[in-house]
């Protein structure tokens, strides 16, 4: 599972050397960012269901998508937000990459679901994050960066 620490350790192991000072600096940098990430993860976990419904209602409320797909969309958005919660905890994109993004296009296409609706929903969530009502600026920045990462992967 890719995270700040495992990336460093795997590279050091491949070279057969002990963690060097620069490895340790990299790990320390990720620890320094960790409180903001964990805050975002905590707030997201607490409001995950509400955020999902809110976003899907907004996207499907416009009438441009088939209502029959709405439940699947809720299920998937919920799943991806959970993976984002995991990414916020690990400090890397490992959970999204391994469990969400690889094979994603194929699955969504096979189910004949509109990818654009997903993108709109994630963009809606990103734009609705309110500082400081929802979370602190650093936490919001970490959260938005991951939403953008996912939107890029879907586009």
């Amino acid at each position: 599972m890719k995270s700040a620490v495992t990336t460093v350790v795997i590279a050091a192991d491949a070279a057969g050397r002990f963690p060097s000072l620069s490895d340790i600096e990299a790990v320390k940098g990720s620890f320094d960012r960790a409180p903001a990430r964990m805050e975002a993860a905590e707030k997201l976990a607490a409001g995950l269901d509400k955020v999902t419904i809110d976003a899907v209602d907004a996207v499907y409320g416009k009438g441009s998508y088939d209502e029959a797909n709405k439940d699947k969309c809720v299920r998937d958005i919920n799943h991806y937000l959970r993976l984002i919660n995991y990414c916020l905890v690990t400090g890397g994109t490992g959970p999204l990459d391994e469990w969400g993004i690889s094979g994603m296009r194929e699955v969504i296409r096979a189910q004949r679901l509109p990818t654009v609706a997903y993108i709109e929903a994630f963009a809606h969530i990103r734009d609705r994050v309110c500082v400081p009502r929802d979370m602190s600026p650093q936490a919001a920045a970490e959260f938005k960066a991951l939403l953008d990462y996912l939107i890029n992967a879907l586009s």
Partner: protein
Amino acid sequence: MLDAFSRAVVSADSKGAPIGSADLVNLRKYVSDANKRIDATLAITQNVSCIAADAIAGMVCENTGMTQPGGNCYPTRRMAACLRDGEIILRYVSYALLAGDPSVLDDRCLNGLKETYMALGVPIANAIRAVEIMKIASVAIMTETNTGRKMFDGINSGSGAQCKEIAAEAASYFDRVISALS
């Protein structure tokens, strides 16, 4: 391999639940102890050859026949292999300590180690003794309870007494090596 964070993620994923406040308590502790963890890792990495060489020398002193003809550390080629293995075990312990999770030690070092040693005719009891000495030495250096000078430059600049909990964690990784060999 996993670290403390991805370990929490894997266990949350098996339940299909996001990581909430309750699960974050332990991780917040891990982050707040980060500097001590880094210091403890530096205590190992800055003293690798010292720890490994002392442990192997100690093991030989307790079993002087080892360096005599017919002993397992004779000729020097085999003694050198022994020193090398001591450093390899220390390296994986330092990885596990930095990651806060033993998976890297288990997967990449201990899996099959005992079988390899038995196939090569390495005396397991002596190997375990060397690991024990490395454990004692590493913990003493981390907690600054070694005799003589302080043996590492950390970034925490606190006293070694603050590293006690992390040193206990490091000791648990050495114990893992010992139980894998037993």
